[in-house]
């Protein structure tokens, strides 16, 4: 294993060693095409069936045929939204949120150019939705509601089960981007009203480049990729058998570790958060601390910039990520931070620490010791900072030209 402290598990995760072991034979002796009749393909086909089952169990889906393998979370999101539009040409409205992942947001913005109407639900300062606004928008003009289960930046959870129920009562297809939630929260799709759900392997210790679209039996569907009869014609293209087997194994392991996520992973996250907040002034947790993923914490450090923090952390072997503009090369800080109305002085300094079951409490203590001097070092350089606190009336004392 590589050295260093990896706290960027919402970006991607290490493939679990057990998962690697399980998938390796599918590159060599088990290379057959699962569609083939002969023994080479046949065996692979049986293993795909098992993987489908393992995923079904983790999602609590009623049928294994509700699992469609795709190439990634992004493809699952695109398939879900475009399918709903194609299958219901008279419905030209989409409801989503302002804080979705670009996999949904960029697609929606693109669809707006083709005259689809998109409602982006706003969030409050803690990243929560206004359910009244949502209810008022549901109508028979709406083709699909697409709402993320958990936010990748802040970890904040949306009330998906409730929202799916409301959507069903209004006769509208409900999709959730659960890429960050699957494996971290227990799910039971057969008991709720979610029609479609996206997940991505690399967020739960399976490889990159494998995803799933859950499609409830009976929901109208149009494929994104047409071609062969793979996935019952719902997603053509020869199956990525090694990764499918891997994802199956990863889901089984996620299921076994669910309690661990809720208890130990959460304990590490909480310890880190308290440790940092205690030691560093002028910083705060973003999102809804009482309702979020157990593995995620996002802290905004005021008056300093995120990329600079990450570079200094990286020098100490600590990996995290930031919503600052500079890490993405854009001029605006993260749309999630802006949507929550986090002031610019803090939004640029937001740092996300995201855990997995492979982290340890020892690592947490190291990070708690590393962060305060880094923040102090950067604040010393900051024109907004003076000695032990922000410059008074910073707007007046430092008001740069061309703001």
């Amino acid at each position, binding site marked *: 294993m590589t050295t260093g402290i990896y706290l960027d598990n919402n970006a991607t995760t290490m493939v679990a060693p057990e998962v690697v072991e399980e998938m390796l034979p599918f590159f060599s002796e088990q290379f057959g095409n699962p569609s083939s009749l002969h023994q080479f393909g046949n065996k692979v086909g049986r293993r795909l069936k098992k993987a489908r089952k393992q995923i079904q169990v983790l999602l609590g889906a009623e049928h294994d045929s509700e699992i469609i393998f795709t190439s990634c979370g992004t493809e699952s999101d695109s398939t879900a939204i475009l399918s709903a539009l194609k299958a219901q040409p008279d419905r030209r409205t989409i409801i989503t949120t302002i804080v979705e992942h670009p996999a949904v947001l960029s697609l929606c913005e693109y669809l707006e150019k083709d005259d689809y109407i998109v409602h982006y639900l706003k969030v409050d300062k803690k990243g929560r939705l206004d359910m009244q606004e949502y209810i008022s928008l549901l109508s028979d003009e709406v083709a699909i509601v697409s709402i993320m289960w958990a936010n990748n930046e802040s970890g904040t959870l949306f009330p998906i089960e409730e929202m799916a129920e409301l959507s069903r009562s209004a006769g509208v297809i409900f999709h959730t981007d659960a890429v960050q939630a699957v494996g971290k929260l227990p799910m039971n799709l057969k008991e709720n009203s979610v029609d479609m759900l996206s997940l991505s392997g690399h967020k739960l210790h399976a490889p990159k480049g494998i995803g799933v679209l859950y499609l409830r039996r009976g929901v109208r569907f149009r494929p994104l990729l047409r071609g062969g009869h793979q996935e019952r014609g719902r997603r053509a293209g020869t199956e990525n058998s090694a990764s499918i087997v891997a994802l199956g194994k990863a889901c089984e392991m996620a299921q076994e570790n669910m309690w661990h996520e809720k208890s130990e992973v959460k304990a590490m996250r909480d310890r880190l958060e308290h440790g940092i907040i205690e030691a560093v002034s002028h910083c705060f947790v973003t999102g809804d601390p009482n309702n979020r993923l157990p593995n995620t914490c996002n802290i905004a450090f005021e*008056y*300093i*910039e*995120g*990329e*600079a923090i*990450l*570079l*200094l952390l990286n*020098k100490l072997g600590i990996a995290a990520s930031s919503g*600052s*503009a*500079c*890490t993405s*090369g*854009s*001029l*605006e*800080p993260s749309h999630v931070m802006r949507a929550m109305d986090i002031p*610019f*002085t803090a939004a*640029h300094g937001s740092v996300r620490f995201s855990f997995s079951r492979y982290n340890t409490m020892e690592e947490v203590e190291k990070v708690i010791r590393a962060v305060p001097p880094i923040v102090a070092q950067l604040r*010393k*350089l*900051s*024109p*907004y900072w003076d000695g032990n606190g922000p410059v008074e009336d910073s707007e007046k004392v*430092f*008001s*740069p*030209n*061309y*703001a």
Partner: protein
Amino acid sequence: MWDYSETVQEHFFNPRNAGAVENANATGDVGSLSCGDALRLTLKIDKKNEVIIRAGFQTFGCGSAIASSSALTEIIKGMTIDNALKVSNQDIADYLDGLPPEKMHCSVMGREALHAAIANYRGEVWQDDHEEGALVCKCFAIDEVLIEETIRENALKTVEDVSNFTKAGGGCSSCHEGIENILARVMAENGEKFDPNAVAGEIVKPTSGLTNIQRMKRIDALIDEIRPNLQRDHGDVELLEVDGKNIYVKMTGACSGCHMATTTLGGIQQHLAEGLGEFIQVLPAEALVQRTSSGAQ
């Protein structure tokens, strides 16, 4: 993350001249909080010979913003202010062995802080002379504001035009959609509609080596060669207009509205392209109507 040079990293991890200069007699504040960059430059300038004796910076910003500030202060220390004013943002970037295209604006910020500080020393008011937009073309580091202004000033209508004037879009193609959006927005200011099929505004020089008259005659002759084939199917074709690479024709008789019309157009296009030895586009009469009514030339 970023591909920072060793020098950028060195200046970020060990910044020179950090902090405010005591008894400074020049201060320049520039930046934009929304962009995540802000820089205060303080200088101690010798009143007798106008040499910068000391320079210090305070920066709110990313790795390259801090490194650029550090580099700037190193470059200008010991210079007369007249010489310092000649330091360009490229000089700052070069001093750091280059910056990623997305980060060039950090060096621009350095230069502006310097100008602001010297204006402050001279008792002048410094006016920012450039506005910065989001980076559109990453290959050539061209931002939105520059593209927008260039489109407006030169009445550009196509992505190809924009590439010719600014280089933006001349590399990996990933920003073509973004450039089209800017075109649509700017053209809408004049009530024009962006046409993705338009060809670049410059008069296209015939690559066939023919003069315009020769080329026109050749096109006419080539169309005449096809007509017997169409007439056999009780149709016909008429040449309407030649506009650079766009050749407009009218399908008549059985050909007009026939479901094979597009196939036929394709056939005519191939015949003309082969006969002329250049790439051309054959368009139906309807396209000509659209072109004139939308006001696009």
